[in-house]
């Protein structure tokens, strides 16, 4: 089994070296005078930021993140179930229905409480 991962390791190294080397070459080809001076604002657009980066952010983003964790973990179980489904038959379906049912009940609760309106 590990032998299948040897080509992946080799390609990963090649693939990592390519952009790194390209970036270094790009860097070396520029004289110091051509690089931006330290202290410049990080925006070519000259519009100063309204607020510090470490400010408040919309709750919408946090809700999306929390929901993602819940549903993505559920998908992990669904994947392994789906692979073995054809061997399990009707039993497989009825085993999975409660799992998905609980998930969808949670989804309905979120829906009712308006969490999805805030995304």
């Amino acid at each position, binding site marked *: 089994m590990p032998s299948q991962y040897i080509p*992946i390791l080799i390609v990963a190294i090649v693939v990592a070296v390519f952009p790194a080397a390209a970036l270094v070459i790009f860097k070396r080809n520029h004289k110091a005078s051509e690089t931006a001076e330290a202290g410049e604002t990080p925006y070519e657009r000259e519009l100063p930021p309204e607020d510090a980066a470490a400010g408040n952010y919309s709750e919408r983003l946090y809700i999306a993140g929390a929901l993602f964790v819940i549903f993505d973990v559920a998908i992990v179980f669904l994947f392994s179930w789906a692979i073995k489904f054809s061997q399990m038959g009707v039993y497989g379906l009825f085993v999975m229905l409660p799992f998905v049912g609980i998930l969808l009940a949670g989804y309905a609760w979120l829906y009712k409480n308006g969490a999805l309106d805030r995304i």
Partner: protein
Amino acid sequence: MADHSPTKAEAAEQPDHAPDPLQSGSEVPAQDELGQRGSPQAPEFLHPRLRVLQPVADDVKVLLKKDGWSAASADRVTFWIAPLSAVIIALLTYLVLPVGPAFQTSDLNIGLLFILGISSLTIYRIVPGNWSSEHRDSLIGALRSAAQFLSYETAAALGLASVLLLSGSLSTKEIVQAQLDQGQWFIFYVPVGFLIFFICSLATTNRARVSPPETNSEIVAAHVMENRNFHGALDSLAEYANIIVAAGIATTVFLGGWLRPLASYRDRFPGTSVELLDVLPGLAVAAISAYCLRSGRRPQAKIRKAVMNWTGGICGVLAAALLGTLFAPENAMAGVHGAFWFVVKVGAYMYFCLWIRFAFPGLQFDRWTRRSWRILIPAAFINLITAAMAILASQDGGLPMRFTTIVATVATLGAAAWLAKDSPADPVAQTADGG
């Protein structure tokens, strides 16, 4: 936050600030300008007949731009890591995609999981690149991109799971083999799964005008704006590589991978081992080649003539390869023809993505994210259950698969329509804190 002052729009209107962010923010000209000339900022030093090469010149220009900003607040490590990880992640995914039965770097038994896992790391392209600037607008863009990516990643995985019910394996090679054994591409067994994956691939590759998570006119993504040099070039390389990966996954999983259409129809020419349908692609490419070479003879501009002749020549070589391998050993034949069909399907899928990008107007990022959670993800769950029931009904109940598939598809689409009807069309107003 409602009490921010002044707002972006007001600031942009003041003459002592930067001009309209739409003007200065984007190097990509509006679509109607594209038809008339190249990038409006590009120096037009090229000879009029060579203007075709303007995009190439633009790319070379990228290499000559000044090295990225080094603002005092910048985080150097993440600034360097972001484009590197982008390219590595994008190119690693190609490893397990089978380009024909003969061409595959590694046939992992967890192939599909490997692809999903690696491509989820795309987040590490978006967030560190924007984090490094320590700039609020950039970070808002990154978080929006990340939120949209996560939302659609979930639905895409659920869409793919419906295929695993049929294939019973995660290995990409075995998924294609299962489509050959069961006599149909999986798009015909789980059409809703394909639809969900297609929508998600539009959203996660940021390909569509439909989904500009960085919302150019408001906050301009930092990894586009600040790194319009080689860092940015690597970043957009990764973005385009991701489109090909999405097309490759869809081709492998739903569109039969390297299989030709009607793969189970195997009638041969009498007395030979050549299958009837294998001749068609070779003949079609040969016809294209002949057409190009013929129209290349007509009097016309030199550059057109050259393009026609080159296209004709390349197609001629391809046709020779396709027709010649018909008489080669079985393995060589399957390899070349499989690669041909795989590339054609990937190209067609990407064409559809671009088509949709140009055909439909944009939607705000939050509308997209909300549509994913309100419609797509519950619909994907329902699709999984109905697909499982359809498979059971045909395996154990003895009903024809065609019938059960149609019933399951109609039920799923009906549920999705009901979900969509219930969703409010207008989102809550966008605020300056990233929402």
